[in-house]
Protein backbone atom coordinates (compact mmCIF):
# COMPACT_ATOMS: atom_id res chain seq x y z
CA UNK A 1 0.00 0.00 0.00
CA UNK A 2 1.52 3.35 -1.02
CA UNK A 3 1.42 6.47 1.16
CA UNK A 4 -1.35 8.10 -0.90
CA UNK A 5 -3.83 5.33 -0.50
CA UNK A 6 -2.93 4.99 3.15
CA UNK A 7 -3.69 8.68 3.58
CA UNK A 8 -7.04 8.31 1.86
CA UNK A 9 -7.92 5.34 4.03
CA UNK A 10 -7.07 7.24 7.18
CA UNK A 11 -9.13 10.26 6.11
CA UNK A 12 -12.12 8.02 5.38
CA UNK A 13 -11.78 6.26 8.69
CA UNK A 14 -11.55 9.55 10.58
CA UNK A 15 -14.54 11.10 8.82
CA UNK A 16 -16.49 7.88 9.13
CA UNK A 17 -15.65 7.73 12.81
CA UNK A 18 -16.77 11.34 13.33
CA UNK A 19 -19.99 10.69 11.46
CA UNK A 20 -20.62 7.54 13.47
CA UNK A 21 -20.04 9.43 16.68
CA UNK A 22 -22.22 12.30 15.46
CA UNK A 23 -25.08 9.95 14.50
CA UNK A 24 -24.60 8.21 17.83
CA UNK A 25 -25.21 11.50 19.65
CA UNK A 26 -21.77 11.75 21.16
CA UNK A 27 -21.28 15.35 20.07
CA UNK A 28 -24.28 16.75 22.01
CA UNK A 29 -25.90 19.93 20.64
CA UNK A 30 -23.51 20.11 17.70
CA UNK A 31 -24.55 16.65 16.71
CA UNK A 32 -28.28 17.49 17.00
CA UNK A 33 -27.86 20.61 14.90
CA UNK A 34 -26.00 18.65 12.32
CA UNK A 35 -28.72 16.03 12.33
CA UNK A 36 -31.50 18.57 12.03
CA UNK A 37 -29.78 20.30 9.13
CA UNK A 38 -29.32 16.96 7.51
CA UNK A 39 -32.95 16.05 8.00
CA UNK A 40 -34.11 19.39 6.68
CA UNK A 41 -31.97 19.05 3.62
CA UNK A 42 -33.19 15.53 3.20
CA UNK A 43 -36.80 16.69 3.57
CA UNK A 44 -36.33 19.54 1.11
CA UNK A 45 -34.75 17.31 -1.48
CA UNK A 46 -37.27 14.58 -0.95
CA UNK A 47 -40.21 16.97 -1.25
CA UNK A 48 -38.87 18.54 -4.40
CA UNK A 49 -38.12 15.17 -5.85
CA UNK A 50 -41.57 13.84 -5.11
CA UNK A 51 -43.10 16.99 -6.61
CA UNK A 52 -41.00 16.55 -9.70
CA UNK A 53 -41.88 12.88 -9.86
CA UNK A 54 -45.57 13.67 -9.57
CA UNK A 55 -45.23 16.28 -12.25
CA UNK A 56 -43.55 13.83 -14.59
CA UNK A 57 -45.60 10.73 -13.88
CA UNK A 58 -49.06 12.07 -12.86
CA UNK A 59 -50.59 12.39 -16.33
CA UNK A 60 -49.67 8.83 -17.11
CA UNK A 61 -51.11 7.71 -13.78
CA UNK A 62 -54.42 9.52 -14.39
CA UNK A 63 -54.77 7.85 -17.74
CA UNK A 64 -53.98 4.45 -16.30
CA UNK A 65 -56.26 5.10 -13.31
CA UNK A 66 -59.08 6.11 -15.59
CA UNK A 67 -58.56 2.97 -17.62
CA UNK A 68 -58.49 0.89 -14.47
CA UNK A 69 -61.57 2.67 -13.15
CA UNK A 70 -63.45 1.98 -16.36
CA UNK A 71 -62.39 -1.67 -16.23
CA UNK A 72 -63.53 -1.96 -12.63
CA UNK A 73 -66.81 -0.20 -13.34
CA UNK A 74 -67.46 -2.58 -16.21
CA UNK A 75 -66.60 -5.47 -13.92
CA UNK A 76 -68.95 -4.14 -11.21
CA UNK A 77 -71.85 -3.77 -13.65
CA UNK A 78 -71.15 -7.28 -14.95
CA UNK A 79 -71.18 -8.63 -11.42
CA UNK A 80 -74.37 -6.70 -10.62
CA UNK A 81 -76.04 -8.24 -13.66
CA UNK A 82 -74.83 -11.65 -12.52
CA UNK A 83 -76.21 -11.02 -9.02
CA UNK A 84 -79.62 -10.08 -10.45
CA UNK A 85 -79.61 -13.12 -12.70
CA UNK A 86 -78.66 -15.39 -9.82
CA UNK A 87 -81.34 -13.85 -7.61
CA UNK A 88 -83.90 -14.54 -10.33
CA UNK A 89 -82.66 -18.12 -10.57
CA UNK A 90 -82.89 -18.52 -6.81
CA UNK A 91 -86.47 -17.19 -6.91
CA UNK A 92 -87.33 -19.56 -9.75
CA UNK A 93 -85.71 -22.46 -7.94
CA UNK A 94 -87.68 -21.67 -4.79
CA UNK A 95 -90.94 -21.57 -6.75
CA UNK A 96 -90.10 -24.77 -8.62
CA UNK A 97 -89.11 -26.53 -5.40
CA UNK A 98 -92.45 -25.58 -3.86
CA UNK A 99 -94.28 -26.78 -6.98
CA UNK A 100 -92.37 -30.08 -6.94
CA UNK A 101 -93.32 -30.55 -3.28
CA UNK A 102 -96.92 -29.81 -4.18
CA UNK A 103 -96.96 -32.31 -7.06
CA UNK A 104 -95.33 -34.97 -4.85
CA UNK A 105 -97.94 -34.46 -2.17
CA UNK A 106 -100.73 -34.74 -4.78
CA UNK A 107 -99.61 -37.73 -6.86
CA UNK A 108 -103.11 -38.44 -8.19
CA UNK A 109 -102.76 -35.59 -10.72
CA UNK A 110 -100.30 -35.13 -13.58
CA UNK A 111 -98.82 -31.67 -13.85
CA UNK A 112 -97.12 -29.61 -16.49
CA UNK A 113 -95.24 -26.50 -15.37
CA UNK A 114 -95.62 -23.28 -17.36
CA UNK A 115 -94.30 -19.75 -17.07
CA UNK A 116 -96.63 -16.78 -17.05
CA UNK A 117 -95.63 -14.62 -20.03
CA UNK A 118 -98.36 -12.00 -20.14
CA UNK A 119 -101.75 -10.72 -19.14
CA UNK A 120 -104.84 -9.83 -21.10
CA UNK A 121 -104.47 -6.37 -22.69
CA UNK A 122 -107.98 -5.40 -21.51
CA UNK A 123 -108.35 -4.21 -17.91
CA UNK A 124 -111.91 -5.59 -17.88
CA UNK A 125 -110.69 -9.17 -17.96
CA UNK A 126 -108.46 -11.20 -15.65
CA UNK A 127 -106.59 -13.62 -17.85
CA UNK A 128 -102.96 -14.67 -18.03
CA UNK A 129 -100.98 -16.13 -20.90
CA UNK A 130 -98.70 -19.12 -20.30
CA UNK A 131 -95.94 -20.54 -22.48
CA UNK A 132 -97.42 -24.04 -22.94
CA UNK A 133 -99.93 -24.98 -25.57
CA UNK A 134 -101.38 -27.85 -27.55
CA UNK A 135 -97.85 -29.06 -28.40
CA UNK A 136 -97.51 -29.86 -24.69
CA UNK A 137 -100.92 -31.61 -24.53
CA UNK A 138 -102.62 -28.65 -22.92
CA UNK A 139 -106.35 -28.62 -23.62
CA UNK A 140 -109.18 -26.18 -23.02
CA UNK A 141 -110.77 -26.50 -19.58
CA UNK A 142 -107.75 -27.94 -17.76
CA UNK A 143 -107.34 -26.55 -14.23
CA UNK A 144 -104.31 -24.41 -13.42
CA UNK A 145 -102.84 -24.36 -9.91
CA UNK A 146 -99.81 -23.37 -7.89
CA UNK A 147 -98.54 -24.91 -4.69
CA UNK A 148 -100.73 -22.36 -2.88
CA UNK A 149 -104.00 -23.22 -4.56
CA UNK A 150 -106.29 -22.86 -7.57
CA UNK A 151 -105.38 -20.24 -10.17
CA UNK A 152 -107.98 -20.78 -12.90
CA UNK A 153 -108.62 -22.84 -16.00
CA UNK A 154 -107.39 -22.95 -19.57
CA UNK A 155 -109.65 -20.82 -21.75
CA UNK A 156 -107.95 -20.92 -25.17
CA UNK A 157 -104.99 -22.82 -26.58
CA UNK A 158 -102.62 -22.33 -29.50
CA UNK A 159 -99.58 -24.44 -30.38
CA UNK A 160 -97.11 -22.94 -27.93
CA UNK A 161 -99.21 -20.83 -25.58
CA UNK A 162 -102.49 -20.82 -23.75
CA UNK A 163 -104.77 -18.28 -22.13
CA UNK A 164 -105.93 -18.94 -18.57
CA UNK A 165 -109.07 -17.46 -17.06
CA UNK A 166 -108.24 -16.60 -13.45
CA UNK A 167 -110.70 -17.26 -10.66
CA UNK A 168 -110.69 -13.48 -10.08
CA UNK A 169 -112.15 -12.79 -13.55
CA UNK A 170 -115.60 -11.16 -13.33
CA UNK A 171 -117.05 -13.89 -15.56
CA UNK A 172 -115.66 -16.73 -13.43
CA UNK A 173 -117.93 -18.78 -11.17
CA UNK A 174 -116.82 -21.95 -9.36
CA UNK A 175 -118.66 -24.41 -7.19
CA UNK A 176 -116.88 -24.62 -3.87
CA UNK A 177 -117.10 -26.40 -0.57
CA UNK A 178 -116.60 -24.77 2.83
CA UNK A 179 -114.73 -27.34 4.84
CA UNK A 180 -115.57 -26.22 8.38
CA UNK A 181 -119.18 -25.31 7.69
CA UNK A 182 -119.64 -28.47 5.61
CA UNK A 183 -121.66 -26.73 2.93
CA UNK A 184 -121.50 -25.78 -0.73
CA UNK A 185 -121.41 -22.31 -2.24
CA UNK A 186 -120.41 -20.50 -5.42
CA UNK A 187 -117.29 -18.38 -5.81
CA UNK A 188 -117.41 -15.32 -8.05
CA UNK A 189 -114.66 -13.06 -9.34
CA UNK A 190 -115.00 -9.33 -9.78
CA UNK A 191 -113.67 -6.46 -11.83
CA UNK A 192 -111.45 -5.37 -8.92
CA UNK A 193 -109.79 -8.80 -8.67
CA UNK A 194 -111.49 -9.62 -5.37
CA UNK A 195 -113.32 -12.92 -4.99
CA UNK A 196 -116.50 -13.48 -3.02
CA UNK A 197 -118.79 -16.31 -2.03
CA UNK A 198 -122.49 -16.38 -2.72
CA UNK A 199 -125.29 -18.94 -2.51
CA UNK A 200 -124.36 -19.95 1.05
CA UNK A 201 -127.41 -21.37 2.76
CA UNK A 202 -128.88 -19.27 5.57
CA UNK A 203 -129.02 -22.39 7.76
CA UNK A 204 -125.26 -22.86 8.11
CA UNK A 205 -122.84 -20.99 10.32
CA UNK A 206 -119.89 -19.65 8.37
CA UNK A 207 -117.00 -18.13 10.26
CA UNK A 208 -114.00 -16.06 9.36
CA UNK A 209 -111.05 -18.32 8.52
CA UNK A 210 -113.12 -21.19 7.10
CA UNK A 211 -111.19 -23.02 4.39
CA UNK A 212 -112.65 -22.97 0.85
CA UNK A 213 -112.02 -25.89 -1.52
CA UNK A 214 -113.35 -26.79 -4.95
CA UNK A 215 -116.34 -29.08 -4.63
CA UNK A 216 -116.01 -30.77 -8.02
CA UNK A 217 -119.70 -30.16 -8.73
CA UNK A 218 -120.41 -29.28 -12.34
CA UNK A 219 -117.35 -31.13 -13.58
CA UNK A 220 -115.34 -27.99 -14.28
CA UNK A 221 -112.67 -28.58 -11.63
CA UNK A 222 -111.40 -31.55 -9.65
CA UNK A 223 -112.52 -31.61 -6.01
CA UNK A 224 -110.47 -30.44 -3.02
CA UNK A 225 -108.25 -27.82 -4.61
CA UNK A 226 -107.55 -25.04 -2.12
CA UNK A 227 -108.98 -21.64 -3.02
CA UNK A 228 -108.65 -19.51 0.10
CA UNK A 229 -110.24 -18.53 3.37
CA UNK A 230 -113.39 -16.70 4.37
CA UNK A 231 -112.64 -13.19 5.58
CA UNK A 232 -116.01 -11.68 6.43
CA UNK A 233 -119.56 -13.00 6.27
CA UNK A 234 -122.63 -10.95 5.41
CA UNK A 235 -125.90 -12.35 6.63
CA UNK A 236 -129.14 -10.48 6.00
CA UNK A 237 -132.37 -12.09 7.14
CA UNK A 238 -134.41 -10.89 4.18
CA UNK A 239 -132.00 -12.40 1.63
CA UNK A 240 -132.12 -15.99 0.43
CA UNK A 241 -128.41 -16.66 0.84
CA UNK A 242 -125.44 -15.50 2.87
CA UNK A 243 -122.45 -13.90 1.20
CA UNK A 244 -118.80 -13.78 2.18
CA UNK A 245 -115.61 -12.11 1.09
CA UNK A 246 -112.64 -14.38 0.43
CA UNK A 247 -108.88 -14.07 0.81
CA UNK A 248 -107.48 -16.17 -2.07
CA UNK A 249 -104.58 -18.47 -1.23
CA UNK A 250 -102.78 -17.47 -4.43
CA UNK A 251 -101.17 -14.05 -4.84
CA UNK A 252 -102.42 -13.22 -8.34
CA UNK A 253 -100.22 -10.15 -8.68
CA UNK A 254 -97.03 -12.23 -8.46
CA UNK A 255 -97.81 -15.25 -10.61
CA UNK A 256 -94.64 -16.48 -12.32
CA UNK A 257 -94.84 -20.23 -12.69
CA UNK A 258 -98.02 -22.32 -12.63
CA UNK A 259 -98.93 -26.00 -12.96
CA UNK A 260 -101.51 -27.26 -15.43
CA UNK A 261 -103.31 -30.44 -14.33
CA UNK A 262 -103.14 -32.39 -17.57
CA UNK A 263 -104.96 -35.57 -16.55
CA UNK A 264 -108.22 -33.79 -15.77
CA UNK A 265 -110.84 -33.48 -18.48
CA UNK A 266 -113.73 -31.13 -17.69
CA UNK A 267 -117.19 -32.62 -18.09
CA UNK A 268 -119.62 -30.76 -20.28
CA UNK A 269 -122.94 -31.05 -18.46
CA UNK A 270 -124.81 -28.58 -20.66
CA UNK A 271 -126.78 -31.33 -22.49
CA UNK A 272 -128.04 -32.52 -19.10
CA UNK A 273 -129.25 -29.11 -18.00
CA UNK A 274 -133.04 -28.71 -18.13
CA UNK A 275 -134.29 -26.73 -21.10
CA UNK A 276 -137.44 -24.69 -20.74
CA UNK A 277 -139.97 -25.84 -23.34
CA UNK A 278 -142.71 -23.50 -24.44
CA UNK A 279 -146.06 -24.49 -22.97
CA UNK A 280 -148.68 -25.45 -25.56
Amino acid at each position, binding site marked *: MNSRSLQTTIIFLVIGGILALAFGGFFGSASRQFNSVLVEVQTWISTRFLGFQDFVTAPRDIVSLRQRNAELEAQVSQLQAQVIELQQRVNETDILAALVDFSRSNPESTYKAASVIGRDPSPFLHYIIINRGSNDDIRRGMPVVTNQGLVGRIDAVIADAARVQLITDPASSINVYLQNADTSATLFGS*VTGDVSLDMISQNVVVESGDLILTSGLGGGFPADLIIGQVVTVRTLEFELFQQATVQPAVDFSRLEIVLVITNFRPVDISPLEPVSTPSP
Partner: protein
Amino acid sequence: MRNIIAFPLLLLAVILQSSVVSEIRLLSGYADLPFLLIAAWALQERVESAWHWGAIACLVVGFVTSLPWPVLTAGYLSVIFMARILQRRVWQAPLLAMFSVVFLGTLFFHLLSFVTLSVLGTPFNFSDVLGLITLPSLLLNMLFSIPIYTLMRDLSYWVYPSEEFE
Protein backbone atom coordinates in the same frame (compact mmCIF):
# COMPACT_ATOMS: atom_id res chain seq x y z
CA MET B 1 -93.42 -0.31 -48.61
CA ARG B 2 -92.33 1.42 -45.43
CA ASN B 3 -95.86 0.90 -44.10
CA ILE B 4 -94.86 -2.70 -43.42
CA ILE B 5 -93.34 -1.33 -40.22
CA ALA B 6 -96.92 -1.50 -38.89
CA PHE B 7 -96.61 -5.28 -38.38
CA PRO B 8 -93.49 -5.39 -36.20
CA LEU B 9 -94.45 -2.17 -34.42
CA LEU B 10 -97.95 -3.29 -33.49
CA LEU B 11 -96.69 -6.76 -32.56
CA LEU B 12 -94.13 -5.16 -30.29
CA ALA B 13 -96.82 -2.88 -28.86
CA VAL B 14 -99.06 -5.84 -28.03
CA ILE B 15 -96.17 -7.75 -26.46
CA LEU B 16 -95.27 -4.70 -24.37
CA GLN B 17 -98.92 -4.17 -23.49
CA SER B 18 -99.35 -7.77 -22.37
CA SER B 19 -96.11 -8.11 -20.44
CA VAL B 20 -95.18 -4.63 -19.20
CA VAL B 21 -97.92 -2.01 -19.51
CA SER B 22 -100.57 -4.28 -17.99
CA GLU B 23 -98.38 -4.55 -14.89
CA ILE B 24 -98.20 -0.75 -14.48
CA ARG B 25 -101.56 -0.38 -12.81
CA LEU B 26 -103.38 2.54 -11.38
CA LEU B 27 -106.11 0.97 -9.23
CA SER B 28 -107.43 -1.64 -11.69
CA GLY B 29 -106.79 0.34 -14.85
CA TYR B 30 -103.86 0.51 -17.21
CA ALA B 31 -102.89 2.24 -20.43
CA ASP B 32 -103.68 0.80 -23.86
CA LEU B 33 -100.55 1.01 -25.99
CA PRO B 34 -101.95 -0.29 -29.33
CA PHE B 35 -104.90 2.09 -28.96
CA LEU B 36 -102.55 5.04 -28.40
CA LEU B 37 -100.35 4.02 -31.34
CA ILE B 38 -103.18 3.90 -33.85
CA ALA B 39 -104.77 7.10 -32.48
CA ALA B 40 -101.47 8.97 -32.81
CA TRP B 41 -100.84 7.47 -36.26
CA ALA B 42 -104.29 8.43 -37.54
CA LEU B 43 -103.71 12.01 -36.38
CA GLN B 44 -100.63 12.50 -38.57
CA GLU B 45 -101.46 14.71 -41.51
CA ARG B 46 -99.40 12.88 -44.11
CA VAL B 47 -100.52 9.38 -43.10
CA GLU B 48 -102.77 7.58 -45.58
CA SER B 49 -102.71 4.12 -44.08
CA ALA B 50 -104.48 4.71 -40.76
CA TRP B 51 -107.30 2.26 -41.52
CA HIS B 52 -104.82 -0.45 -42.46
CA TRP B 53 -103.01 0.06 -39.19
CA GLY B 54 -106.33 -0.17 -37.35
CA ALA B 55 -107.14 -3.46 -39.03
CA ILE B 56 -103.73 -4.88 -38.13
CA ALA B 57 -104.16 -3.71 -34.54
CA CYS B 58 -107.54 -5.48 -34.34
CA LEU B 59 -105.96 -8.64 -35.72
CA VAL B 60 -102.97 -8.66 -33.39
CA VAL B 61 -104.78 -7.61 -30.21
CA GLY B 62 -107.69 -9.93 -30.97
CA PHE B 63 -105.23 -12.80 -31.06
CA VAL B 64 -104.18 -12.16 -27.45
CA THR B 65 -107.18 -10.75 -25.67
CA SER B 66 -110.36 -12.42 -24.58
CA LEU B 67 -112.45 -9.40 -25.56
CA PRO B 68 -114.89 -10.21 -28.38
CA TRP B 69 -113.67 -9.26 -31.88
CA PRO B 70 -116.56 -6.88 -32.63
CA VAL B 71 -115.62 -4.77 -29.59
CA LEU B 72 -112.04 -4.43 -30.77
CA THR B 73 -113.02 -3.73 -34.35
CA ALA B 74 -115.66 -1.15 -33.47
CA GLY B 75 -113.43 0.41 -30.79
CA TYR B 76 -110.25 0.80 -32.82
CA LEU B 77 -111.94 1.81 -36.07
CA SER B 78 -114.05 4.40 -34.24
CA VAL B 79 -110.89 5.86 -32.76
CA ILE B 80 -109.38 6.16 -36.23
CA PHE B 81 -112.58 7.73 -37.53
CA MET B 82 -112.55 10.27 -34.67
CA ALA B 83 -108.87 10.99 -35.22
CA ARG B 84 -109.28 11.58 -38.97
CA ILE B 85 -112.14 14.00 -38.40
CA LEU B 86 -110.32 15.89 -35.65
CA GLN B 87 -107.08 15.95 -37.63
CA ARG B 88 -108.83 17.93 -40.38
CA ARG B 89 -110.47 20.36 -37.95
CA VAL B 90 -107.88 20.83 -35.20
CA TRP B 91 -104.81 20.56 -37.41
CA GLN B 92 -103.13 23.59 -35.86
CA ALA B 93 -103.04 22.06 -32.38
CA PRO B 94 -102.08 18.42 -32.87
CA LEU B 95 -101.55 17.67 -29.18
CA LEU B 96 -104.99 19.02 -28.37
CA ALA B 97 -106.39 16.73 -31.04
CA MET B 98 -104.45 13.82 -29.55
CA PHE B 99 -105.81 14.51 -26.07
CA SER B 100 -109.33 14.82 -27.45
CA VAL B 101 -109.09 11.55 -29.37
CA VAL B 102 -107.58 9.71 -26.40
CA PHE B 103 -110.20 11.09 -24.04
CA LEU B 104 -113.22 10.36 -26.23
CA GLY B 105 -111.77 7.11 -27.60
CA THR B 106 -111.00 5.66 -24.18
CA LEU B 107 -114.47 6.48 -22.88
CA PHE B 108 -116.10 5.02 -26.00
CA PHE B 109 -113.94 1.89 -25.99
CA HIS B 110 -114.61 1.23 -22.31
CA LEU B 111 -118.32 1.87 -22.68
CA LEU B 112 -118.40 -0.56 -25.60
CA SER B 113 -116.49 -3.20 -23.60
CA PHE B 114 -118.74 -2.69 -20.59
CA VAL B 115 -121.97 -2.99 -22.57
CA THR B 116 -120.83 -5.97 -24.64
CA LEU B 117 -119.47 -7.96 -21.70
CA SER B 118 -122.56 -7.17 -19.64
CA VAL B 119 -124.79 -8.39 -22.46
CA LEU B 120 -122.70 -11.55 -22.69
CA GLY B 121 -123.38 -12.24 -19.00
CA THR B 122 -120.42 -10.83 -17.08
CA PRO B 123 -121.73 -9.08 -13.98
CA PHE B 124 -120.28 -5.57 -13.72
CA ASN B 125 -120.94 -2.74 -11.32
CA PHE B 126 -120.97 0.49 -13.32
CA SER B 127 -119.51 2.65 -10.55
CA ASP B 128 -116.70 0.13 -9.96
CA VAL B 129 -115.88 0.07 -13.66
CA LEU B 130 -115.92 3.85 -13.90
CA GLY B 131 -113.92 4.54 -10.75
CA LEU B 132 -111.48 1.64 -10.78
CA ILE B 133 -110.91 0.95 -14.48
CA THR B 134 -112.05 3.70 -16.83
CA LEU B 135 -110.86 6.86 -15.06
CA PRO B 136 -107.43 5.45 -14.07
CA SER B 137 -106.98 4.06 -17.61
CA LEU B 138 -107.97 7.43 -19.03
CA LEU B 139 -105.38 9.22 -16.90
CA LEU B 140 -102.64 6.76 -17.89
CA ASN B 141 -103.62 6.98 -21.57
CA MET B 142 -103.40 10.78 -21.40
CA LEU B 143 -99.97 10.57 -19.77
CA PHE B 144 -98.64 8.14 -22.36
CA SER B 145 -100.20 10.03 -25.26
CA ILE B 146 -97.55 12.78 -25.39
CA PRO B 147 -94.47 10.58 -25.96
CA ILE B 148 -96.40 8.27 -28.25
CA TYR B 149 -97.64 11.17 -30.36
CA THR B 150 -94.04 12.41 -30.75
CA LEU B 151 -92.83 8.94 -31.66
CA MET B 152 -95.53 8.44 -34.26
CA ARG B 153 -94.98 11.90 -35.75
CA ASP B 154 -91.31 11.08 -36.30
CA LEU B 155 -92.27 7.70 -37.72
CA SER B 156 -94.70 9.35 -40.13
CA TYR B 157 -91.85 11.56 -41.42
CA TRP B 158 -89.85 8.41 -42.09
CA VAL B 159 -92.69 6.47 -43.71
CA TYR B 160 -93.88 9.45 -45.75
CA PRO B 161 -90.81 11.58 -46.59
CA SER B 162 -91.60 15.22 -47.44
CA GLU B 163 -90.73 15.02 -51.18
CA GLU B 164 -92.99 12.08 -51.63
CA PHE B 165 -95.70 13.80 -49.59
CA GLU B 166 -95.52 16.99 -51.64
